[in-house]
């Protein structure tokens, strides 16, 4: 890791966005208010969309904003408001053994970081990151409707079943 190419604009942007994402993610799992947790999750998901843009994946970034920030967050807020009478801080959001999650998560993070740093070290993502071109949607669609058509069909079935299942489960009868 050389100091001169550490401060290119992409790395600075990456640092700021990932800091925001990590703060948001920690708040999602620690805050005492379900609605606030959902709003912190919006920051994490938007930050992820920005990271996808840094990785030159424009179409995935736009889909992320449309599907996650648009649809999934509305679902979460609906779920919160339909299942709870009051909107406000709650003291019993955690299990009584919640502290056991901390060593598990830290151990996992330690092992994964060791493996990642050991395996990839200071390898460049791409030789000259100024050369990264956005991936055209046409290429992605050729990929989806070419070699990955069968997973796409399976995915359509999963979505159909999920829609039917959600209606059947949540219907008042």
């Amino acid at each position: 890791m050389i100091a001169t190419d550490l401060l290119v604009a992409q790395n600075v942007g990456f640092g700021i966005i990932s800091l925001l994402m990590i703060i948001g993610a920690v708040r999602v799992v620690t805050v005492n208010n379900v609605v606030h947790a959902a709003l912190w999750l919006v920051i994490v998901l938007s930050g992820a969309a920005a990271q996808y843009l840094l990785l030159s994946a424009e179409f995935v970034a736009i889909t992320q904003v449309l599907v996650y920030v648009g649809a999934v967050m509305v679902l979460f807020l609906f779920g919160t408001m339909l299942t709870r009478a009051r909107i406000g801080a709650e003291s019993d959001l955690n299990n009584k053994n919640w502290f056991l999650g901390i060593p598990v998560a830290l151990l996992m993070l330690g092992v994964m970081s060791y493996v990642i740093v050991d395996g990839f070290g200071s390898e460049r993502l791409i030789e000259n990151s100024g050369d990264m071109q956005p991936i055209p949607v046409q290429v992605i669609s050729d990929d989806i409707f070419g070699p990955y058509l069968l997973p796409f069909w399976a995915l359509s079935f999963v979505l159909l079943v999920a829609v039917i299942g959600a209606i059947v489960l949540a219907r008042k009868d």
Partner: protein
Amino acid sequence: MLTTQFLLLGAVLFCIGVYGVLARKNAVMVLMSIELILNSVNINLLAFSVRHDSVDGNTFALYVIAIAAAEVGVGLAMVLLIYRNRRTIALDDLSEMKG
């Protein structure tokens, strides 16, 4: 940009999500933590997509997003059903199948 930085960001988000799944009692909060985990996987997929100069990672990231949307829909319908029957969504209280 280094490969490691994106993979480490994914690892950090994944571990925060795992902590959330383990520590939270509220079912909606557990679903939110699962969303964190799925997003960290997407960051990894796209990083490897750039690293291998291939478009497959983008395709699979889109599939993961679609699966996550379906999962949240069904999950919240189940949470709603549990709330309607039990007046609570605390996962500790759902212990009928405990041996």
